[in-house]
């Protein structure tokens, strides 16, 4: 596998871009923002129609059986339009856990509906303080406890959770449409992410047997970090394009503001950060596809993508001036999204610590 996209992959990208740009509406996302627990249902339907929901799920389970490269392509395109659906990555997380650690029965039962998009997946691995630590307990197949602010938790049909079973930590699979599961929507600064607090009171759940839950949770986050980084890079590139277009059009002191170095150097810096993030994303994609050193490359891409998107989204508002800070402009959609994505798989502080600990071991 090489760093360049193949003809087929370019075709997938171009089709996705066309479709998303046609169906995208900033107004749809703005409505989501004002409505607790809403997401862009039309866009999700489009994802299902295109088969993207199962893009990285093997064909035997009803997916398209494509590689992490194609998954990244779609994630990037969704990121460009600041899609009001978080499910591509959250469902991928559940499918990914099942493929790695699920039993044959679990795989054949749960993967096909995830691949088809009839089911939405969510992943709950953090405690209320942002540690990878179980807040749930499972005993005799019954799950109890509270998982705070689970992304897509409000809409998901099935979730992978980190739970305590006696002295050990395990990953468990739980269906959310059952008695004993209570969901509470949270008002957030990016409501389209479907964040909800899930309370379990004896809900039926199945343990993914055969490995430590803490290690698996970390490995799962690394896998999810790769497509999420593409989503971030897509958004960040879009911010650069918006800033560039405005800098060409907006006149001040008798010339386009893009002539001023204070503006153009800011946009050049966006480019630089985006390219560093993209380079890391390519490396991590290859590691994901080939079981390489994902701890290093996934941590690196997570850090790089957070930094790039954060910079581009805030400086895009700055380049726009006053109008960039208004509700009607799309700039703030990316500003909000960049922060939401910076949090969702754990903040940059956590990933930096993870990366450096890994390097310490590598250079011991």
């Amino acid at each position, binding site marked *: 596998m090489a760093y360049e996209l193949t003809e087929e992959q370019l075709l997938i990208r171009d089709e996705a871009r066309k479709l998303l740009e046609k169906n995208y509406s900033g107004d749809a996302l703005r409505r989501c923002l004002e409505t607790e627990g809403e997401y862009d249902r039309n866009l999700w339907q489009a994802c299902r129609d295109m088969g993207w929901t199962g893009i990285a799920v093997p064909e035997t389970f009803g997916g398209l059986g494509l590689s992490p490269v194609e998954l990244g392509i779609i994630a990037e395109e969704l990121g460009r339009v600041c899609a009001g659906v978080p499910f591509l990555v959250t469902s991928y997380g559940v499918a990914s856990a099942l493929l790695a650690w699920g039993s044959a029965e679990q795989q054949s039962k749960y993967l096909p509906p995830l691949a088809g998009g009839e089911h939405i997946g969510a992943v709950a691995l953090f405690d209320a303080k942002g540690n990878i630590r179980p807040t749930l307990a499972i005993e005799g197949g019954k799950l109890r406890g509270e998982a705070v602010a689970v992304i897509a938790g409000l809409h998901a049909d099935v979730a992978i959770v980190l739970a305590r079973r006696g002295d050990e930590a395990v990953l468990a699979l739980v269906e959310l449409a059952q008695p004993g599961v209570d969901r509470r929507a949270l008002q957030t600064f990016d409501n389209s992410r479907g964040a909800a607090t899930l309370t379990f009171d004896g809900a039926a759940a199945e343990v993914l047997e055969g490995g430590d839950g803490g290690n698996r949770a970390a490995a799962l986050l690394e896998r999810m970090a790769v497509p999420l980084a593409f989503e971030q890079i897509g958004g960040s590139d879009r911010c650069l394009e918006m800033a560039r277009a405005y800098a060409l059009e907006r006149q001040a002191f008798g010339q386009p503001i893009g002539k001023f170095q204070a503006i153009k150097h800011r946009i050049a810096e966006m*480019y*630089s950060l985006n*390219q560093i993030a*993209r*380079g890391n994303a390519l490396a991590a994609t290859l590691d994901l596809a080939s079981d390489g050193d994902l701890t290093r*490359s996934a941590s690196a891409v997570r850090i*790089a993508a957070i930094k790039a998107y954060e910079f581009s989204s805030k400086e895009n508002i700055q380049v726009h001036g006053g109008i960039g800070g208004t509700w009607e402009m799309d700039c703030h959609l990316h500003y909000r999204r960049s922060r939401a994505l910076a949090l969702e798989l754990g903040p940059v502080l956590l990933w930096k610590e993870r990366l450096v600990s890994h390097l310490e071991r590598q*250079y011991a």
Partner: protein
Amino acid sequence: MSGYESPEITAYRQQVRAWLEPHAAKYGASARRGLDMDQNLALGREWQALKAANGYACINLPRQYGGGGGTELQKIIFADEEARFGFPTVFFGVSLGMPVPIMLMHATEEQKQKYVPPAIRGETIWCQLFSEPAAGSDLAGLRTRAIRDGDNWILRGQKVWTTYAQYSDYGVIVARSDPSQVKHAGLTYFFVDMHAPGVEVRPIKMLGGDSEVNEVFFNDVVIPDSQRLGPVGGGFKVAMQTLMIERYAGMDESGFGPSLEQFIRLARTAELNGKPAIGNDLVRNEIAEWAVVQGGLGAIQSKALGAIERGAEPGPEASIFKPVLANLRQRISALAIDLQGNAGLVDDPELGPRDTFQRSWLEVPTLRIAGGSDEMLANTVAEKILGLPQDYRPDKGTPFDQLNK
């Protein structure tokens, strides 16, 4: 640089490494410790001749002029491997990187036969005489005059920052042949004998104590018109062509400074408040930032090599390498010096910028300017890649001799 590469590249890399390794004892970093400049240069000439005899000098230039007749990709891989052993190559970097290839593009057949093979064998060295006291980033503002005198030209003026001019036998130079034209149009390009009467070279001592660059004065130096490269008035174009030859500038993952691994080892032995400094979060933050830059640039590099391998143009994103790495190196070198306490003041000028953080830190200010300042490179990204408009340039359209009046 790390990253994924094709089996063909890996195979060539191994072939090259196998050839290089046995020579390391005689020509490599450890053999060169303690040598002065002249001794280094003598060893460098020997090394260059040995490479030429084995087809590893100027790998991508034609065999008929002493090159290796190979590909640009092979040249890049070879240079990458060669750098690992610390062979004495610096004296030939500019010479063979730009002046010699531009000679192959513009000189007559007779001149090519006469000048190029000895340069490739390391017997002669060429320098590039572009920058001037009043023309750095704004190269076309240069003032050195080329005055027509029958079949000859008279060169009068001053160049500066000329790398290894003190060791050079020849140079390529761009000078102003017609001041009544607008600044880009009145320039002409030549090659010049650095031993000709009237050429005066004065080394400049840089802030790190080294003197690799020079001032070069041209006191009515006479050169024949046959040493003109390109048309009269076409000098700016040839100058740009010269700068474009190295479309792929290799960068190692540390930006030619100490490695990330060296920094981690230092942080492990250094102490803050009696505890290992590597436990300090500010130190850890810098390690993370460095690894992230390495990961990103490493992939860009691999991608560029892949493009060259396929015969395609590498993407423009490699233009971020130098500013990103130089700034990172400056910040981390300062932190690394901090981690050594007062002993961090100790500086050994015999060592190179890869060896100590002190040497690295002293070299970086120049790196951020040479070959395009941070600011010019940001302009390049904004204008050439992103299509933003050029700055306001009040000198545009005005004849050179009417400027600043």
